[in-house]
Structures are given as structure tokens and as C-alpha cells.
């Protein structure tokens, strides 16, 4: 008999452009902003792995899964999908004043929302998003919540107030002993996210997605959006993949050397 230790689980999700259609993304040359029209939006793939892990923990140990997201109103679809996968509650922090938030401002807003939700044992996030892919929010979130963090987790085992995590390194991994409450970010290898079932979809339409403003979470205007972001994006441009088509014809030794230099340069030394 597995002893039931119910856990309060929070999962941070973000609605992002569908990575399969990323080549359709264009930049508005005047405003230097991203044009997302025509590109379907999905839950950031790694966030689904984070949610799946939370659902498994709830299945194994008991507890509650709350999903938190920060974004424009249309991010409600992502929250609904999370509810359909099985989350118990969904909170969307949505407020025009949050536009332009960098990772610091985002992490601060999320931390305030999570505090408003109440006590938690574990916050799970995807290791990075498909748009910014900085991976910075989970450690910053942990700092603002005053708890430890581990990023790039692919194996997580909870035992009471502790967890053992395996976190990926370049060639291998590190074993980490985590004291809860904590923040973890997960990578793809950790699990296979479930597909929402019909009953999940019906349930999701009975649970309203709560919408919070910056006042609801206790964030000041100065801490929000561009005002609260130490970094700014001063320029954005598209990269067009045009093949170089540089062709070399000559003695084999020189040809090999010519290739060698270019290959080494591509691989970064």
C-alpha cells in the first residue's frame, strides 16, 4: 500500500506558436513585432511534459494540480487544454500592462500569483519554451518564491518532503536531492504527455479558467511589463536560410583541408 501524501502541485504553462509552423512567423518591419497571425497556438510542448508529470504525481500520491499561465486572453485555450488533460484548476494572469515582460518580470508575476494560490509543494515547468527558449523563468521563479530549483529534470521521484531528481548535463546527468517545496523544470525524456480524453474535454468546459489582473496578484505597475523588465529587445530580424553554394574543386588534400576548416567552424571549434 503506497502511503498517500497529497501534494499541492503547480504547473506553469505558456501558450506559444505551434513549433511545426514556426517557419510561417514573420516580423512586422515597422513595429519590429512578431506577427503571429496564421500560426496556430499551442501549449508549449515541454510544459505538457511538466503537466503530465504533475498528473502522474497526483495519481500516485494524491493531491491537486493547479495550472498557472501568464498571457493574452487567447491563452485561455491553453488553460482549457490543460484542464482537459486533467488539471484541477487553471489560473490565467492576463493584463495588458504585462505586455513586453522579460523573464525577470514574468517570473516575478508568476511568483506572486503562486503565492496568491496558496501553499505549494512543487512547481513544475517546461525547461524552455519554443519561442524565447531562454529557460530562465524556472530558476528566477524559484528565487522569488524563496525555494530551491533544479532544471532539465528527466527523472523525478517523490518521497515525503524530499525528491530525487536526475538533471541532464552535456554528457550524462547529476543526481540531486531536493527538499520540498521546490521548483523543477523538465525535459522531453521525462514522460509521454497524455492525450485529452472525451471526459476530460467535457470536464474542462465545466471548470472556468480564473482570470487575474496585476492587482489580483499584488504586482505594481512598475514591476509589470516593459517597466518591470531590465532587458529590452531593441531590434528583431528574420533569418533567411539561403544556401551558400560554395564549391571547391582541387586536389584531394586541399579539398579535405577546405572541408575540415568549414566543418570545424560550424561545430564551433
Amino acid at each position, binding site marked *: 500500500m503506497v502511503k498517500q501524501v497529497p501534494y499541492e502541485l503547480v504547473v506553469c504553462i505558456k501558450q506559444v*506558436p505551434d513549433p511545426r509552423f514556426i*517557419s510561417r*512567423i514573420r*516580423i512586422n518591419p515597422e513595429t519590429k513585432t512578431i506577427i503571429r497571425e496564421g500560426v496556430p497556438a499551442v501549449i508549449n510542448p515541454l510544459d505538457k511534459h511538466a503537466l503530465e508529470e504533475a498528473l502522474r504525481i497526483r495519481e500516485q500520491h494524491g493531491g491537486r494540480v493547479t495550472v498557472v499561465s501568464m498571457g493574452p486572453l487567447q491563452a485561455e485555450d491553453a488553460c482549457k487544454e490543460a484542464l482537459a488533460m486533467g488539471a484541477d484548476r487553471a489560473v490565467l494572469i492576463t493584463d495588458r500592462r504585462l505586455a513586453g515582460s522579460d523573464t*525577470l518580470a514574468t517570473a516575478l508575476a508568476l511568483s506572486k500569483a503562486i503565492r496568491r494560490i496558496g501553499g505549494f509543494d512543487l512547481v513544475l515547468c517546461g525547461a524552455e519554451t*519554443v*519561442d*524565447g*527558449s*531562454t*529557460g*530562465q523563468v524556472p*530558476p528566477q521563479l524559484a528565487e522569488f518564491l524563496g*525555494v*530551491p*530549483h*533544479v*532544471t*532539465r529534470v528527466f527523472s523525478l521521484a517523490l518521497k515525503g518532503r524530499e525528491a530525487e531528481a536526475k538533471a541532464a*548535463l*552535456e*554528457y*550524462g*546527468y*547529476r*543526481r*540531486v*536531492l*531536493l*527538499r520540498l517545496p521546490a521548483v523543477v523544470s523538465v525535459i522531453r525524456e521525462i514522460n509521454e504527455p497524455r492525450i485529452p480524453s472525451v471526459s476530460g474535454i467535457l470536464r474542462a468546459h465545466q471548470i472556468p479558467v480564473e482570470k487575474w489582473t496585476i492587482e489580483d496578484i499584488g504586482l505594481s505597475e512598475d514591476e509589470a511589463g516593459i517597466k518591470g*523588465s*531590465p*532587458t*529590452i*529587445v*531593441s*531590434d*528583431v530580424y*528574420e*533569418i533567411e*536560410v539561403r*544556401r*551558400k*553554394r560554395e*564549391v*571547391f*574543386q*582541387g586536389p*584531394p588534400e586541399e*579539398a*579535405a583541408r*577546405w*572541408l*575540415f576548416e*568549414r*566543418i570545424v567552424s*560550424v*561545430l*564551433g*571549434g
Partner: protein
Amino acid sequence: MELWVYAEQRRGKLVSASLELLGLARGIADKARWALSSVLLGHNVEVLCKELIAHGADRVYLVEHPLLELYQCEPYSRILAKLASEAKPEAILFPHTAVGSDLAPRVAAKLRTGLSAHVVNIELDERRLLRQIVPGFGGSIMAVVLCPERRPQMATIMPGVARKPKPDWSRRGEVIRVEEEVSEEELRARTLELVEEPPEEKPLEEADIVVAGGWGLRSREGFRIVEELAEALSAAVGGTRPALDEGWIKPHQMIGHSGKTIRPKLYIAIGISGEMHHTVGILDSGVIVAVNNDPSAPIFEVCDYGVVGDAFEVIPRLTSMLRELRGAQLKQEP
């Protein structure tokens, strides 16, 4: 005014990316006329200070403690933030490694300052601001990030962006020992051990480098040059339909319309003519290299670097150059 580089060490050896970063930082420091310092945390790592100085650091802040032997997110970030708020460097650069990207954000949050991630290019502008160029949306968009007001400006830099500088062992520099208390209680996310594993055989779609062979290789024996080059690059092996039909590759290695679509960082096509049924599977690759003895082969239309020549002459030479380089690198890497 200082520019700091975080020196990542693993098992008492400096990670290559940290040394590359010093090379990059040296250029910025010289231009801005800042001093270049490195911050090193660990246990019994004093011997590494000389190496940091030889690679360009003017000063090394050394923090040693038994509990700091392995990377520990809370004491490491606390100590770095403390040192930074005392010494007030202009900027701190980290390598974008697993550790660097775990550590830097927490430090930035403690200092309430800006951090950009996986920077691929960084320059100083006229205002002494670091222009940090980062890829977004899977690399199809580039953004220029600035941290105009808060200090220090922080960034994690992609490994491979800079070249490791040639060490000058005659260089002199300063080592500042910093004593710090670290308690067991602080290690709430405690790294217990590092487990190193050789890179697994990844499926073709996940490999960073793929070497593929086609009809031009003529035989199983001929196909070996593909396998040897792949081995030297720790790359995955792929091939075209003819290679599959001849039994040189297995079905899961076939690339093309009725096979796999791949997008590795580097794709090398050997003895492959490059008709559409194959090339449709590689068009999103980072860099495409081709070797074929037919100058009119369509593969040359879709490649970045192509060699018209006899693969059996060119590839083995290339392979031995790469093997030599790897041998030299292994002596340095942890």
C-alpha cells in the same frame, strides 16, 4: 570597472566553454577598457587560477569550500550575487551550459538585473552597452537584447561562439581568495554526484550531425568511409534509397520522401546525387556539406559547402584530420 566571466569547472577541470568565453570577453574588455576577472567556485581548484589567467583573466575571485565541490544552485548563486553586489562588475558572462543556464538566472534574479540567454554574438556599442544577439523561434528570428539601466548586464553565451584563446602561461594576474561559510542546510537542491554517460545512439531525427552515403559509394566496403567519418564526428549514419537497397543501411536510417526528414546542425552527403526524393528530407538542416565527383549533381544546388572530387580520396583525409583534432581536444576536456 570589471567584466566577469563565470569559470565553470567539473571534476577539477575547467570546462572548454569557460575558456572560450575568456577569449571573447578579453576582446570586449580591451575595447571597453575594463578589467577582465573570472569567478571560480569549487574545492581544491586553486590550481586552475593560473590557467584562467593564462587564457586572459586579469584577476580571479576564488571561493573554495568542501560543500562547493559539486555545483550547488543555492550557495553558488548566493555567493556570486554577494560578490557582484560588492564588486559591482559592469557585466557577467556565463557559458550557456547545463550548469550556466541553471545558475545565471538565479543570480540575475537575486540582483534584479537583466539576463539574456544563448547569445550567439555580443558586441559593445557606443554607449558601452552590450548588444546581445539571441536566436528565437527555433533560430528563424534573431533579436538584439540590451540591458540599458540595471547592472550588471548578464548573458549566457552559446558554446562554440568564440574560439578558445591560445594560453599565454607567462601572463600575470591577481588571485583574490574569498572566504565564505556554507552550511549543509543551505543545500536544499543538493547535487549528490555527477554521472557521466557516453552519448547514446540517438535516432536520426535527434542527431546534431548526420553523415549519409549514396549510390556513389559503389559497395559495402565503399560505404565504410561514411561510417568512419561519422565515428570521427560522433555523428549518426544515414543514407539514400540505393544505400538501403544495397543493404548498407537499415530502413530507419533512410533519409528522404519515403524515409526520414531530419534537421541536424550539420549534414554531410557523400556520393549522393541529391535528387528531390532524398533532399526533401534534409532541407531544414543547419549546414549542408556535399562531396560528389559529378559537378552537375543537383546536391550542389542545395548545399552550403560542396567538393567536386573523388570521395574515396577526400573523405578519408578529412576523417584523419578530424581524428587528430579530437585527440588534441580530449587531452583538454574534462
